């Protein structure tokens, strides 16, 4: 994974806003999926907001996570699967490596797992001398390129087919083509070979169901079915929160997920996996492992202000309507979780100070909340994260970001509560602004931190007479405001 540094947000974003091709690709996603999601929810039950049902389901599950996790584990074990609760990312990685060693694995086929990006699993496997191949087409492309995914569900959205053609020609030793079916066939052939010879399959899961003890993986290519059933051992990596309690809840969430993610009523493939091959079954792995990864999630769970972010079903819907994401693309966020959900989730798991740009580099426009299938109030949480940066917070190990800014806002709040001071300051500012360069009345360059505004935009001058002045004059003379 390259460029995984959320502190480079501004720098990377500044580059990405120039990338016309990126914008064309993202705009397609926005117009096709983003703006249709809400219509699709409405079709689910006309006149009723199914997002609220999904939200209630998620809340109930997350509030009772311990019980749900226990039921899930018991049901998986009853079917002969292994369950491991990993407190940290390293713990989860270690566990996967342990299984790989026991099976003397030299090749892993993998797919559908954001979590493996979160815990840097590929790097660890490769370091252990194990070849790791992504089987999802988009992820495969990104992997061949040596990059990180740029969208939660469409990881290679930032590539054109011409670029994919060039990449395949170079890496797969094939004649150049930019015909999508031919490219898909090329990838399929390369991947099939890998899948037939892999000893271990690793996958994520879109959701698990505690009641039935299974993990559900949705896909539109079907590769994941092979990756999870052909190798001798299959390991599922799942965030502890991605669970449904009952089959009924599971169905409600699944239907919302595919609508929000891809504008589909249901995806082409829905795989239910949940244990090793039984004696009377024709296929499936010899061993099945479910690794439930915490990696900072129980800390979020313990904070009632942020718990809501664990309701997220990782549909990527919020990305597709976010104007900031549309302008800067996924890589700018320096984290596998990008867009509005990343801007909330990443700081909470990687440190709020480290990710201060993610908390602050959004406009709080609210489009993400409106489209989210579980109605997550991301703007509320973003604004709360900012308040931690403003004042520091022991519980979240946040250092105050800027004392000078704090003092400025402190002084400002005093002035703004005293109209006389405010007016006196306005008089001074009105004189002061004469020193600033102007064109057609508006200010061309502002000093200090406000200079960012005038980089590409003019700023309005203070009027010679404020509304308050005009009103006072009118009270006296009957004219004016």
């Amino acid at each position, binding site marked *: 994974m390259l460029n995984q540094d959320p502190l480079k947000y501004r720098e990377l974003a500044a580059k990405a806003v120039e990338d016309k091709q990126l914008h064309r690709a993202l705009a397609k996603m926005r117009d096709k999926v983003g703006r249709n999601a809400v219509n699709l929810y409405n079709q689910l039950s006309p006149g009723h907001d199914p997002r609220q049902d999904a939200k209630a389901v998620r809340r109930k599950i997350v509030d009772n996570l311990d019980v749900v996790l226990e039921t899930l584990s018991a049901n998986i074990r009853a079917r002969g699967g292994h369950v491991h609760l990993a407190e940290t990312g390293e713990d989860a990685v270690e566990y996967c490596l342990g299984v790989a060693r026991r099976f003397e694995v030299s090749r892993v086929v993998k797919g559908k797992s954001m979590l493996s990006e979160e815990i840097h699993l590929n790097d660890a496997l490769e370091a252990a001398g194990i070849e790791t191949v992504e089987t999802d087409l988009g992820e495969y492309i990104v992997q061949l390129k040596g990059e990180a995914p740029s969208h939660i569900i469409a990881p290679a959205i930032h590539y054109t087919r011409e670029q994919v053609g060039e990449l395949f020609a170079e890496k797969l030793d094939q004649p150049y083509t930019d015909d999508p079916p031919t490219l898909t066939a090329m990838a399929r052939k390369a991947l099939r070979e890998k899948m037939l010879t892999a000893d271990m399959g690793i996958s994520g899961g879109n959701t698990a169901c505690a009641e039935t003890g299974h993990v559900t993986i949705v896909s539109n290519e079907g590769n994941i079915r092979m990756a999870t059933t052909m190798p001798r051992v299959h390991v599922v990596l799942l965030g502890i929160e991605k669970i449904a309690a009952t089959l009924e809840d599971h169905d409600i969430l699944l239907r919302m997920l595919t609508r929000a993610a891809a504008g589909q009523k249901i995806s082409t493939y829905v795989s239910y996996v949940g244990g090793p091959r039984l004696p009377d079954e024709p296929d499936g792995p010899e061993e099945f492992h479910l690794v439930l990864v915490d990696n900072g999630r129980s800390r979020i769970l313990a904070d009632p202000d942020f718990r809501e972010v664990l309701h997220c079903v990782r549909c990527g819907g919020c990305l597709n309507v976010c*104007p900031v994401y549309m302008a800067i693309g996924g890589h700018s966020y320096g984290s596998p979780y990008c867009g509005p959900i990343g801007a909330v989730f990443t700081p909470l798991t990687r440190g709020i100070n480290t990710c201060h740009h993610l908390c602050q580099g959004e406009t709080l*426009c609210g489009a993400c909340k409106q489209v989210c299938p579980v109605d997550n109030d991301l703007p509320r949480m973003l604004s709360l994260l900012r308040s931690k940066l403003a004042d520091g917070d022991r519980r979240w190990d946040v250092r105050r970001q800027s004392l000078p*800014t704090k003092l400025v806002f402190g002084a400002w709040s005093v002035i703004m509560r005293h109209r006389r001071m405010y007016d006196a300051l306005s008089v001074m500012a009105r004189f002061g602004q004469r020193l600033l360069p102007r064109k057609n009345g508006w200010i061309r360059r502002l000093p200090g931190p406000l200079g960012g505004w005038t980089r590409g935009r003019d700023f309005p001058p203070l009027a010679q007479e404020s*509304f308050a002045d005009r009103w006072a004059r009118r009270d006296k003379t009957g004219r004016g405001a």
Partner: protein
Amino acid sequence: MTKPKRVTLFIQCIVDSCFPAVGEAMVKVLERQGLALDYPANQTCCGQPAFNAGYRDEAARLASHYLDVFEDAEAIVCPSGSCVHMVRHHYMELFAKDPRQLDRARRVAAKTFEFTEFLVEVLGVTDVGATWNGQVTYHDSCHLLRGLGVKDQPRALLSGVRGLTLVEMTRSDECCGFGGTFSAKYPEISEALLETKLANIQATGTGAVVGCDMGCLMHMQGMIRRRELPISVHHIAEILAGEE
């Protein structure tokens, strides 16, 4: 809310200091509706800039000031959706742990209205007797639209203006990239959003954009002036105050 006789004006800081004409236009429209107007002289800002930047204690102090100033008003009207959104929603967050202030905030929030919302919902008018010749397009400000649910009211008022044609732009509800301090802190991103917005406005061929929030409008106008684009920018009050 029943139709009030007296309306108290809340002229937020940027209208007060940079765009007083917008406040005056609102006054004209409200007076034509036969309302008596009040303007408490010690009002300033609702606290939104501090709140959005994360400075909640500072915002709460201004929120308390707002409550002191406006507590006794019959109805409060403001020419800005985002300030009203601040009062109506974020004050509750700020005072969540202070039952006395929370109670005051609830009462004051219930009588604080955005200008177009007030005209249509409270006064029940969509034709204010205005005339304005030409075509315009309308920008939905984020907090007004998604925060207060005000979408049809300004459009209804615009269609009540004689001589005016409203031409919808693509994605009128997409953020213009203002976002308060965001616009100065992340200028590259903010400008990128604004460019998209301006392109959508220009694509309507109207040459004029109308909105209900001076924050967004000054942001748009900032780039329009810098680049000398042929787009005129209007607060809706200025259009509604237009006479034959």
